[in-house]
């Protein structure tokens, strides 16, 4: 039976409302904190946002004109509140680098990262979890050693080096996959962007050649990025599983004669799922931030590269817009993880 919470004399709020209000308040505080810190860092950095627009050869007159246009003569907190005011009206401003509204840029760059990160995470989950379970079940045997070595390589090898070697082998020497970029030039601008996720848009348009080409371009960067996800997920799965496999209920299950696959997947694995959801969620969120190095090597126009280039050019509207998207991803994935906990573990409900 639901209980109610007393707020003041005679005023009682239902607990669900209290919870929703709490979540909304924490979201608002998170975003205010996120934008305030990013904005302040951007403004106190030694890089000059005016020179990013006018170039180093601009006369002082041109420089001053843009300086005042940007409102840089005003205190930082005034500039910040002006930005917040714009933000509340849904205006993320215009990017210096692309001359486009930041919102439009994000709609173009983020799906590219979403496509890459999703495939990489799926790879990590569908290969990393079985690897981790296999290693835990065969602790100390050669399978365990192989998985641990793969995990170590995936975790410690520089992604830049891994990417270049992969391009050299799989694109240049073996011709198994397509080169850097999202599509061959033959196919550029043929499919109208609906979601911005090329493989999805190509499938929706029934353009199977383009779909095929997009996959050929996607598979290598996603695998490289997926190596990191795979290594992390496999290592953590192994560790969680070892912990569970040493519990007494597992011994009991085995004594009762339950088949071994059921003991592993039905009992032990079920109990590590909640922890794994957290790990997968965090991995996915960090990949959605964009991997600058992977995006650079593979000429992948994603959000990570967009934010980094914007930061180097002191394009603060773009940096803030990108930061907000990353913040939304983290918050969204956290909320999704919370929901999933309840689905997989009745004790959390």
């Amino acid at each position: 039976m639901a209980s109610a919470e007393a707020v003041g004399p005679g005023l009682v709020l239902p607990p669900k409302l209290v919870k929703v209000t709490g979540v909304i308040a924490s979201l608002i505080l998170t975003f205010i904190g996120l934008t305030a810190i990013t904005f302040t860092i951007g403004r106190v950095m030694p890089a000059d946002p005016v020179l990013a627009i006018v170039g180093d050869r601009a006369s002082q007159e041109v420089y001053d004109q843009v300086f005042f246009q940007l409102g840089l003569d005003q205190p930082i907190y005034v500039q910040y509140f002006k930005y917040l005011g714009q933000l509340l009206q849904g205006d993320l401003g215009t990017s210096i680098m692309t001359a486009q509204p930041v919102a439009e840029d994000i709609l173009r760059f983020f799906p590219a990262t979403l496509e890459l990160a999703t495939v990489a995470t799926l790879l990590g989950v569908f290969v990393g979890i079985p690897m981790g379970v296999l290693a835990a079940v065969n602790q100390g045997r050669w399978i365990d050693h192989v998985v641990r070595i793969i995990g170590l390589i995936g975790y410690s090898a520089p992604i830049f080096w891994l990417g270049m070697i992969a391009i050299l082998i799989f694109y240049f020497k073996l011709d198994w996959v397509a080169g850097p970029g999202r599509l061959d030039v033959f196919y550029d601008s043929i499919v109208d962007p609906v979601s911005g996720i090329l493989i999805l848009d190509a499938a929706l348009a029934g353009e199977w050649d383009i779909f095929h080409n997009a996959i050929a371009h996607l598979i290598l960067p996603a695998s490289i990025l997926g190596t990191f996800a795979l290594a992390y997920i496999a290592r953590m799965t192994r560790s969680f599983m070892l912990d569970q496999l040493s519990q007494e209920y597992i011994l009991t299950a085995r004594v009762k004669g339950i088949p071994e696959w059921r003991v592993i997947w039905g009992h032990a694995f079920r109990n590590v799922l909640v922890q794994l959801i957290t790990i997968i969620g965090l991995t996915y969120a960090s990949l959605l931030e964009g991997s600058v190095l992977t995006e650079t090597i593979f000429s992948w126009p994603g959000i990570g590269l967009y934010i980094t280039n914007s930061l180097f050019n002191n394009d603060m509207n773009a940096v803030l817009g990108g930061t907000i998207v990353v913040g939304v991803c983290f918050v969204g994935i956290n909320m999704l993880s919370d929901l999933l906990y309840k689905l997989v573990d009745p004790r959390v409900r």
Partner: protein
Amino acid sequence: MKRIKIMLLGFAAALMLVTGASQAATPKNTFVLAKDIADIITMDPAEVFELTTGEIIANIYDRIMMFEPEDLQSLVGGVAESWEVSKDGKTITFKVRSGLKFHSGNPVRAEDVAWSLQRVVKLNKTPAFIVTQFGWSADNVDSLVKATDDSHVQITITEEFSPGLVLNALSAGIASVVDKELVMSHEKDGDLGYEWLKSNSAGSGAFSLKTWKANEIVTLQANAGYRHGKPGMERIIFRHVAEPSSQRLLLEKGDIDMARNLTPDQVKGISGNSDIAVDGHPKGTIVYMAANAGHPILGKQEVVQAMRHLVDYDSMANSFLAGQFVVHQAFWPAGLWGALETIPYKQDIAKAKSLMASAGHADGFELTIHTLTNSPFPEIAQSVQANLAKGGIKANIVTLEGKTLWPKYRAREHDIILARWSPDYVDPHSNADAFANNPDNRFEAKKTGHLTWRNAWSDDASNKLAIMARNELDLDKRKQQYLELQAMLQKKGPFVIMFQQNEQVARRKNIKGFVSGSNFDLVFYRNVTKQ
């Protein structure tokens, strides 16, 4: 076991799906270049001042005056068919070619030519100084630049300038002729179509802008009705590939036709590939060191002169700069009209030490070199650091991104800057004004466009000669004055000019007709063919 078999089959099927999925070559009617195009921030010719966009708009817009790919040494009429200079040299009347059309189909009129220049002055973006130096301002430009009838445009300058210089300046990007009717149909709040033209085109050149996706791709479409005939390629595609090693692999594989940002190592690496040719194109970019004359020691001429003798130019040019930079020691690039091509300095430690002693610094001193983070600046800085140490100068190196470095330079907060400079337009005054002329050395004057001011250096003789050459009507005399000015700046002043860029471009051998001239915007695609 059965499950493992199914998994293996699935994996094999996935590999088959992607295997050999890329195309073997670029389309026959398309020229595909790989380049780092992250510097593109606008396509508006009134604002463009970046390297990539400089060359792109040169292919989209015809300018009033032009250098054509068939003869990069001769300045000829672009949109202007002919011109007449008044006796006092202050008024030039241009006759506009008849029958020209913009990509939109609108005719190119004298009114468009006048309006394009007026727009540059009224918008007053960074490159506007190229024409506002003639005395034009938002208040007077309508009366000083005007269409006198349907086919004639008259411009009048109020400052003393050689007409030759004015004509040269009108070959710069800001002299691009813009389709007034089309641009004004997109005007918002009196912005003269500025927001729209940032990412669109309205020219009459060999190509029009089809798409620009920042950090991804730029596509140009051929203009079949171009005055020199239809370009050789239907489309030009710039693919943003920031990583030079990726550019190399794409080129060797045939997925691109040209790589524009290969490092010397990569150029060496592809030298054995019979399908690829590497061409060298001398560019106008020079690499220099500048000493802040406001520094108590660096302000002494003997010290700067000692530094000129300490640098080992040849060793750098023959090692890590091989093929991409050549030794050059004057402020105006070799190969251009009025350039001084003598190389007076080689490393001479004894002479440098004697100069240091006569300046009262035989025991040396310590300084900081500020430079850019991108190659080859850190490498040059390290080499210079070792060279200066031989003369007792202990140099510390600080590398910074341009956006952090330039504010320091513009505020005179440096000891030594190691940087680059390329001309804004093809006239020696472009660099003479930066390297030799300082109209007001006071800090509060903020003449930041002059490198002399940034280095707190001013010299009456240098200022006078720079202005005299700027105003001279006689071309031969003018050339002599610039040669004299460059020789003067080789002996005094805050600059140690070291190298000139030689752009190395790697192309598939079936690509012919790519022309890249000395200035950053003298790059032409219209003669490119694929065999």
